[in-house]
């Protein structure tokens, strides 16, 4: 088959539907990556306009531009949009678009999940935008501290928009994190062992693991605060055993890693582009990987440095102060590796390089002021002043926006297949750089003079007027620069001339394809032998297009790719992807209905939405799998591998495993909250404990153990030629016993609104009950799949997945019942 015929055949199988209908049913990563990026930059535009409004307000003393109510909405939405609707989704969009191409594969692990994540983001973001347009946007600051945001001091719907909208958007981040983790570990070109992965993939992997463990505390906090506001369960009310400091812990357990979740992908962009611009290879690949991992973990030990002024004892403060200073070390290792890369190469000053230099200059200053605020006595002086606002913008704009602009200009020829013609970008860079430093350098100064952050106005006697005016004028210069970038990109997309492949002479695989890339990326998959396959294998792109790589021998009738062994990168199994479908957007719409019903308090709609999600989830999984064994498949180069469904560690198993990491973090955060309230909050012990029940304890632990054991026996029966039906039913009975016992416990516990103890217990019990119901549904679905012929001794993947969830249920049920029953026994 010629390369052109192969292209046409693959294109027919992989392309999304033509016209605008294709947007709603596409599951292709290139389409969804572009949609993510377009949407996130739309939100960047909105957040930027809000920033201009803030600067207009503060440009002069005694400003009457906006009243305090509107101003509070403006700064809250600016922070919220930039953090949740721009920065994280931009990483998601870039990684969704680039990762499969860089890793030498055809798509991400779960294409429908990518689409579902996008629509959750789009709908959740729209929800927040609507609140802004209606003038009822969140107004409690982007970190939403109670008691200000509790029902007493913020009775309107504004705060609910934030809590519910952000939780909705966070589904998207969790989906993307699971997707990236599994894709990076399992979906790579054959031969691409861990040490041959492109450095961006390492950064994306570390960031994804951080999202899986960083976001759940905030999701938990948002749920608890919304439940308190809507139903009066007192998690943060001091008079009923709650503590508003619990919110600060949960928020910053997310919030500080969030800074690195934003920075690390940008660092991945830098580590990818910088060596290309310097015409050399990256210095210290292994050191950079180790530094990124160290940075990720250390960032989880810094959260209390946002709480230095809350009265925490000195020893506690010193732990976090020490950790906050230490985090500068792995950051410094990366910065020195980049400087060393420049030193050993021959740097060329193309436009991406200008932005990288802008990053280096800006981020180093932000890092140094970060060390300043890590020191407790200084932080006590600077806390909640404009100095902090300036510092965080140096870190986030310097550490994210400059690298992302470098990335946009670097990959633009890949996105469009065109070569840059107009030179607006260089002028835009100068304006952005000067405007940024004019805005935020001045803000450091006025902060040290005592200007608090978030104030809507100030007196002329303060002496802050000139500095604020300089800051505001500079911010408008920066905005003009950013607008010029937008114009430059639009002109490029529509007007610029066709360019050649790999204009930068890069070594990574995303350039080994047509530009713009076809829907299937590679006509056949490369065999990778180094970190820079392009220069190492002559004519690689053409050879792949001719079908000389892996899967080049396969008929192009299904969407197929290879999964590999995590460490060695040797082919492991063959994956068949689902095709275009509207299921993700419908599922996201019904999920949105669930959140909307909570927001506008149409509680009658909530169970209907839950039912809808259940039905759609069953449809989602039912469409997967096969009713016949396929056996080993020829994949080219003399290799044969099984189908994914005919292994024990299928993509679904890996996806479940990493989703359970996030889930376990959520559960751990809940236990932390329980322990925190118990030891620190005033108003404890409660007047009434849950009466301990031996019968409930035995039913929960016994039922969970039966479910775990029976699922293992079912899997063994299946492998030995049986069907495992009876064992699956026994496992289901065990799970139902857990659900019944937990429901009984919930029924007889003290009123959840009476005290934080009862409220926490209620959430703990509900969490276990939810998982018991989920596990029962999975087991019932497995039973139906066995009966329908979707399993066999070879097709065994589904048993392993359900067993994994049963194991998780057993762990949380045992811990949950102990946490509920033991206090009553001790009392």
């Amino acid at each position, binding site marked *: 088959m010629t390369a052109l015929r192969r292209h046409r055949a693959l294109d027919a199988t992989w392309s999304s539907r033509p016209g605008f209908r294709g947007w709603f049913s596409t599951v292709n990563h290139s389409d969804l990556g572009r949609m993510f990026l377009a949407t996130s930059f739309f939100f960047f535009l909105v957040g930027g306009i809000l920033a201009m409004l803030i600067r207009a307000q503060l440009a002069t003393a005694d400003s009457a531009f906006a009243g305090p109510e509107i101003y509070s909405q403006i700064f809250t939405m600016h922070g919220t949009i930039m953090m949740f609707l721009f920065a994280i989704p931009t990483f998601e969009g870039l990684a969704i678009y680039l990762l499969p191409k860089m890793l030498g594969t055809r798509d991400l692990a779960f294409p429908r999940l990518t689409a579902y994540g996008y629509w959750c983001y789009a709908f959740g973001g729209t929800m927040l935008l609507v609140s802004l347009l209606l003038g009822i946007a969140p107004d409690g600051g982007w970190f939403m501290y109670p008691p200000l945001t509790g029902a007493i001091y913020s009775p309107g719907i504004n705060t609910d928009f934030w809590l519910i909208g952000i939780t909705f958007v966070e589904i998207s981040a969790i989906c993307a994190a699971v997707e990236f983790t599994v894709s990076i570990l399992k979906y790579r070109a054959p031969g691409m062992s861990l040490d041959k992965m492109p450095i961006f993939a390492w950064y994306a992997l570390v960031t994804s693991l951080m999202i899986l463990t960083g976001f759940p505390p905030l999701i938990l906090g948002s749920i608890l605060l919304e439940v308190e506001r809507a139903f009066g369960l007192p998690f943060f009310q001091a008079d009923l055993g709650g503590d508003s400091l619990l919110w600060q812990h949960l928020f910053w357990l997310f919030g500080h890693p969030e800074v690195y979740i934003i920075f690390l992908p940008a660092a991945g962009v830098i580590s990818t582009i910088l060596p290309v611009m310097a015409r050399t290879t990256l210095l210290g690949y*292994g050191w950079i990987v180790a530094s990124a991992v160290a940075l990720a973990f250390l960032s989880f*030990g810094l959260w209390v440095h946002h709480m230095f002024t809350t009265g925490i004892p000195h020893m506690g403060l010193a732990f976090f102060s020490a950790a906050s200073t230490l985090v500068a070390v792995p950051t410094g290792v990366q910065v020195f590796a980049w400087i060393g890369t420049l030193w050993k190469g021959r740097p060329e000053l193309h436009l991406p390089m200008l932005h990288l230099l802008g990053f280096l200059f800006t981020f180093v200053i932000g890092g140094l002021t970060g060390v300043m605020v890590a020191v407790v006595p200084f932080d006590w002086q600077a806390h909640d002043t404009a100095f902090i606002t300036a510092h965080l913008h140096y870190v986030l704009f310097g550490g994210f926006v400059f690298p992302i602009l470098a990335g946009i200009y670097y990959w633009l020829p890949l996105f469009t297949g065109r070569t840059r013609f107009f030179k607006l970008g260089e002028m835009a860079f100068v304006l952005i750089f000067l405007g940024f430093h004019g805005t935020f350098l001045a803000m450091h100064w006025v902060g040290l003079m005592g200007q608090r952050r978030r104030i809507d106005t100030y007196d002329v006697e303060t002496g802050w007027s000139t500095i604020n005016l300089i800051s505001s004028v500079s911010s408008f210069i920066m905005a003009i620069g950013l607008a010029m970038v937008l114009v430059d990109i639009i002109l490029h997309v529509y007007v610029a001339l066709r360019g050649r492949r790999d204009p930068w002479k890069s070594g990574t695989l995303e350039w080994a394809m047509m530009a713009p890339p076809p829907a299937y990326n590679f006509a056949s998959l490369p065999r990778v032998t180094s970190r820079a396959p392009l220069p190492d294998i002559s004519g690689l792109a053409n050879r792949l297009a001719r079908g000389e790589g892996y899967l080049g021998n396969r008929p192009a009738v299904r969407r197929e790719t290879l999964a590999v062994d995590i460490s060695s990168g040797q082919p492991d199994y063959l994956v068949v992807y689902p095709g275009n479908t509207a299921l993700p957007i419908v599922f996201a719409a019904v999920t949105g209905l669930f959140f909307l019903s909570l927001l506008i308090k149409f509680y009658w709609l909530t169970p209907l939405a839950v039912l809808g999600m259940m039905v759609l989830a069953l449809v989602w999984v039912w469409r997967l799998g096969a009713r016949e064994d396929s056996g080993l498949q020829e994949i080219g180069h003399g290799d044969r591998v099984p189908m994914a469904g005919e292994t024990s560690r299928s993509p679904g198993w890996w996806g479940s495993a990493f989703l359970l990491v996030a889930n376990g973090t959520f559960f751990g955060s809940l236990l932390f909250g329980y322990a925190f309230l118990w030891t620190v909050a005033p108003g404890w012990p409660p007047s009434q404990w849950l009466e301990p029940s031996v019968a409930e304890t035995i039913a929960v632990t016994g039922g969970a153990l039966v479910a775990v054991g029976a699922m293992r026996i079912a899997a063994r029966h299946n492998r030995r030629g049986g069907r495992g039906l009876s064992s699956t039913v026994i496992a289901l009975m065990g799970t139902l016993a857990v659900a019944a016992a937990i429901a009984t416990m919930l029924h007889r516990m003290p009123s959840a609104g009476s005290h934080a103890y009862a409220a926490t217990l209620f959430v703990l019990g509900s969490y276990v009950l939810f998982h018991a119901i989920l596990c029962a549904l999975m087991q019932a679905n497995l039973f139906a799949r066995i009966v329908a012929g979707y399993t066999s001794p070879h097709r065994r993947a589904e048993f392993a997945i359900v067993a994994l969830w049963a194991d998780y249920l057993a762990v949380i049920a045992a811990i949950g019942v102990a946490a509920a029953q033991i206090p009553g026994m001790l009392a």
Partner: protein
Amino acid sequence: MRDLLRILAPLVLWLASFSAIYGLHGLGCAQGWAQITLGPLTLFRSMMIAAWLFALLAQFALLWGTRTWPFGPQGGFAGRTGMLTGWAAVVATLWTLQPVMTTTSCA
């Protein structure tokens, strides 16, 4: 997956020990251990130092353990990177938890 664990395990252990010792600090202050004398030290200080030393011991044990079972022989990319993260975790344990020796207890 073992290669990945080899790289991540030392810092997972640091995070677990850091969080646990911060939790112990909260518990000790709430229970009034700083008012109970135990020889030249208070019960609070003794517990915190013991926990710190245990965390350090665990880090060194892991550093030694990752050279053998179950991670396989030393060398290769994962081995070298694991060694870097292992020493990073030792330094992190030493530095971030040294306040158990140097600062006031619950004030």
